[in-house]
């Protein structure tokens, strides 16, 4: 009989470990490879036969990355600033708009609510890459192409985050809200005083998912902007990686590592809350 979430190790878990550990190694190996590669000196990058491990780790690739950018017209600090600005704005706006929409869809009664929730569920399968062209046309018609808003607004519209927060809010007991209403609380006070504090795990999950969407995003820079000074870090890292050839390998690995580390740390820090939210992620 299956035993989920056992307290400790038991002999019958050995077969599971026999395939889960190799699988986990396969999944993690490319990432470990990037870490080693980023610290390899030039001669180790060109070594034949190639080596997985780094023997004499160095920071050369990281310094080279910043030297290259100092020589170009737009300094790397500009891309970092752009990315930071865009990422912080997207995460904040997403959590605010999605939690407001989630509150409305979860706890309020109004005409068209069921239809709107169904449409949002349908939009979970929205693939932005399928409609890149009309998305670009919309953005240029609104007149926000080549501005920070072109990086921010399209990413804030994230049906999956609204869905997850709404599902989590369904767990908040209605009696709490009724009691607050009796005490004279309006919608805003219930939203700020009850809904937000009680759904922190879902808000954290929404924040981390939206962070992933925006932090790694290359498309908004490539498609919605033309001026280099407004583009973001992942786009810049990508051009380096693509243009650098073999000589740029070490730099590209360093760039990939710089992009990966914040993402990983944030997820490790938040993983308990994410799993808590995912327990309510069922789609009916």
């Amino acid at each position, binding site marked *: *009989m*299956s035993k989920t*979430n056992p*307290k*400790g190790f038991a002999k019958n*878990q050995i077969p*599971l*470990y026999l*395939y*889960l550990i190799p*699988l986990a190694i396969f*999944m993690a190996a*490319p*990432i470990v*490879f*990037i870490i080693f*590669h980023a610290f390899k000196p030039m001669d180790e990058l060109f070594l034949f*036969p*190639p080596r*997985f491990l780094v023997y004499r780790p160095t920071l050369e690739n990281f310094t080279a990355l910043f030297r290259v950018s100092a020589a170009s017209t737009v300094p790397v600090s500009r891309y970092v600033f752009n990315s930071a600005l865009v990422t912080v704005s997207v995460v904040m706006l997403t959590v*605010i708009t999605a939690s407001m*929409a989630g509150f409305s*869809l979860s706890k309020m009664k*109004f005409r068209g609510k069921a239809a*709107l929730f169904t449409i949002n569920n349908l939009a*979970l*399968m*929205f*693939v932005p*890459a*399928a*409609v*890149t*062209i*009309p*998305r670009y*046309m*919309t953005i240029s018609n609104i007149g926000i192409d080549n501005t920070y808003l072109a990086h921010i607004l399209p990413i804030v*519209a994230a*049906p999956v985050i*609204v869905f997850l927060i709404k599902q989590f809010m369904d767990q908040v007991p209605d009696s709490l809200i009724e009691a607050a209403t009796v005490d004279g609380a*309006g*919608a805003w006070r219930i939203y700020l005083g009850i809904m937000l504090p009680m759904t922190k795990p879902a808000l954290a999950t929404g924040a981390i998912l939206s962070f992933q969407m925006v932090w*790694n995003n290359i498309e908004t820079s490539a498609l919605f902007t033309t001026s280099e000074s407004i583009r973001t870090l*992942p786009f810049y890292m990508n051009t380096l*990686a*693509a243009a650098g050839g073999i000589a740029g390998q070490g730099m590209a690995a360093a*760039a*990939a590592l710089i*992009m*990966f580390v914040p993402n*990983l740390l944030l*997820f490790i820090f938040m*993983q308990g809350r*994410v*799993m808590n939210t*995912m*327990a309510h992620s069922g*789609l*009916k």
Partner: protein
Amino acid sequence: MYKKHAPYVFLAPYLVLFIAFIVVPVAMATGLSFTNFDAIQRPGFVGLLNYVNLFTQDLIFLQYVLPNTIIFSFIVGPGGFALAFFVAWSLSQLSKWPRTVLALLCFSPSLTTGVAIGVVWRIIFLGNPQGHVNAFLMNWGIITEPINFLANTDFIMPIVIVVALWGSMGVGFLAMLAGVLNVNPELYEAAAIDGVKTRLQEVFYVTIPSMKPQMLFGAVMSIVGAFSAGAIGVALTLSNPTPGYAAQLMVNHIEDYGFIRYEMGFASAVSVVLLGIIYGFSAASRRMFKED
């Protein structure tokens, strides 16, 4: 209990963005797919011509893009979904710490960027002896000359599939892991009394039926992931179209016609067909995991 307009006030900010960046683009794609829009002149109405051309004249689409998309999306969509469920189910039978560590390792590829995919997998499959796979095969005497994996049309698609599966354990995987962990243990005991004997029976009669909503969420996430993954082929081969159209997917075809040839009307028709296929996959999953 709330003021009458409150629900709409709370919904409005999201709804405006949702309409502007999701509803309008989908509607525009549908509208433009009936025109000959080329980004310069006013679009003229051409009826179903783009669709007719797509399915009768576009040899690249029929010979490469459509079969590629079908193979890729079946292996990475339903295949990746089944894999994610199997891993989640296996992990749920471990104790907390090893489970968390292994789950994190499996999830970590989905935290990486296109840069990482391009860098690491390109080096692993590099076409000269400095590529890790070539070095390994040559070292063991399996091959004598390096294989140019990323320019060889026989190898590009399998490599793209491996890389896509590598990055496929995302949010859906986490949802299913949470789902398996939350199945009421008493159900297993009751099932055992009712004559459920093997692990496989348990999975199909107890585990999956008790977590259908999570299964559906996981399925939708897998499908979306599979159809969004078009950038992998281009990131690995550094060209669109990919060599010999070997890893050309519908997403790449849209980009090729839309942003390289500026045949936006035609590209929009491809978009609409793609959205239709995605909808078909999701509708099928909905049927499978609908709660009765």
